[in-house]
């Protein structure tokens, strides 16, 4: 069975379960809303150059103005359009969140499978490594790397978030693999002449896939919050208009208590989008682990 077919039947089977979770549906709705906004992001700059989120400045405005017809969400301290910045922020949040989560889940799954399947010294070594990364305070660690590097690019931030996020996934996948490798179908595969590689990739990996999806969903929230935090404290990528960066600009130009139209939307969006991924993640968790469902 091909992976696409597998995905299709699995979505069809589980959608009826997912639909029962009201929180999961709410999360999916919020997520869809922001995904729609992210798709709109390239439009403003096509309408007029002044709507470019980074370099577009309204020639008639040189300070922050409240919402108007021309600028539905107002402008920032130098007359840039806040709506187009907000839309660009949605795009960045999805890009950062999903990329970081996918990378860290891939690393975590690979390490978890290897660790659980081979056991012994490999397992001990990999799990000690996981323990160390697990107690590492994430944000201070990224900050100290920023100090050593001097300046951060958005892809370095994504990579660092991913490199800090894998141990949780690895532990769970390892535990799952430990139990899976004792099942008869693994034995059957081995008797049929399958090597380690084949067993890992074709027999074990598909069975941990649901867990992988769950952790990816949960990981997106964390990644979005971390990137926003870094931008907010002034250590983000200055060439990228993210929601955290919008807040940082408001903060450093002294608009914190003066411009609610500027301060409220980005913070609310960061919180809601990260909430939505959590809600979806929890609904997936209830599908995977029936013990969590309400009796």
């Amino acid at each position, binding site marked *: 069975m091909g992976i696409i077919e597998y995905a299709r039947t699995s979505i069809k089977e589980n959608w009826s379960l997912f639909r029962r979770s009201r929180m999961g549906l709410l999360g999916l709705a919020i997520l869809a809303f922001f995904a729609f906004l992210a798709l709109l992001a390239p439009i403003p700059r096509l309408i007029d150059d002044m709507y470019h989120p980074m370099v577009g400045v309204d020639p008639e405005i040189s300070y922050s103005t409240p919402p108007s017809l021309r600028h539905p969400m107002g402008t920032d301290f130098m007359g840039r359009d806040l709506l187009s910045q907000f839309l660009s922020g949605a795009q960045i949040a999805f890009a950062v969140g999903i990329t970081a989560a996918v990378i860290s889940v891939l690393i975590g799954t690979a390490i978890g499978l290897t660790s659980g399947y081979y056991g012994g010294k490999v397992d001990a070594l990999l799990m000690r490594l996981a323990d160390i990364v*697990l107690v590492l305070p994430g*944000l*201070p660690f990224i900050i*100290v790397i920023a100090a050593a590097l001097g300046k951060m690019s958005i892809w370095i931030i994504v990579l660092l978030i991913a490199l800090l996020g894998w141990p949780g996934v690895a532990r769970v996948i390892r535990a799952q693999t430990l139990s899976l490798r004792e099942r008869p179908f693994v034995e059957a595969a081995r008797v049929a002449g399958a090597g380690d590689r084949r067993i890992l990739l074709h027999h074990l990996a598909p069975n941990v896939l649901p867990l992988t999806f769950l952790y990816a969903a949960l990981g997106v929230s964390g990644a979005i919050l971390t990137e926003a935090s870094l931008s907010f404290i002034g250590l983000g990528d200055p060439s990228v208009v993210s929601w955290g960066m919008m807040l940082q600009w408001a903060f450093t130009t002294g608009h914190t208590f003066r411009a609610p139209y500027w301060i409220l939307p*980005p*913070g609310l969006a960061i919180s809601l989008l990260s909430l939505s991924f959590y809600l979806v993640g*929890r609904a997936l968790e209830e599908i995977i682990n029936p013990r969590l469902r309400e009796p």
Partner: protein
Amino acid sequence: MYRYLLHRILQIAITMFLLIAMVFILFRVMPGDPASMVLDPKMPPEAKALMKKQLGLDEPIYSQFIIYMKNLLHGDLGRSFYYGRPVYDVIMERLPNTILLFTSATIISWGLGYALGKRIAWRRGTRFEHALTFMGLLFYSVFLPWFGLIMIWIFSYRLGLFPLGGMITPELWTAGGAGIIALVLDVLHHLALPLFVLTLLSFAGAMLLMRSSMLETLREDYILTARAKGLSEKVVRDKHAARNALLPMVTALALSLSFSMSGGVLTETVFSWPGLGKEIVSATLNYDYPLAQAAFIFLAAIVLMANLVADIIYAYLDPRIRY
């Protein structure tokens, strides 16, 4: 139990050593002259050469590391470029402030999370449970620095109930004449809002963890037995279920400590709380490498120490622990 703790202490010491080594390597493999990372760029070249020799920067990297470790153990962390003072002094001033904020937030949020988590799990499926679970998720995913700003806006700026930031009112402390009680109250007044924000964040996580741990425990046969014996609901909930649900919760919470510390850094920054978290951010923004390194090492040390405390609590709670 002692062997278990000894094992954990050893593990924590190794982790700490590896972290320090990592920071050391990080700051020396960076592009450019490694000396520029430890030496103040404003220094005259002769002084730089002298300092280089003193710091052992002309020696091979492994002996540099030995010198670095030796200095660290002697409390010599270099000089802060920004403050022009020994890094050690700056760190020691900030450390208690961070510990005050971090430990009080952790203790309150664990306590509250335990008490509420067991109640909402017990009343599963009710409106009370749905509302609190949703609230927990809301606080867990809220963007903390932004939430902090909103709190300052409402409670400090608009209502004037709390100070805008900082830890003390300088006039009160320099003028003299204020009693010790007045000074303590002043700190508590400054502490209230950042503590509230940080507590809310870690409380939500603790409550959700306790909820799921309690739900697992409630499926156990001994709960059914306890009920069948005719024990009161409260006894079953508190003595039979919650006590056993506490164990996995402590393990999970210990792992969330590093997450809370990230929250602590943001809280300190937003509320200008003079702790290590605020210092690591401003040191990085000021290119003050020695201070940024040291602040990180000490923040990590706090998390590791808190982990050790969690281990001790765990060993105390679970007498089955033998290593």
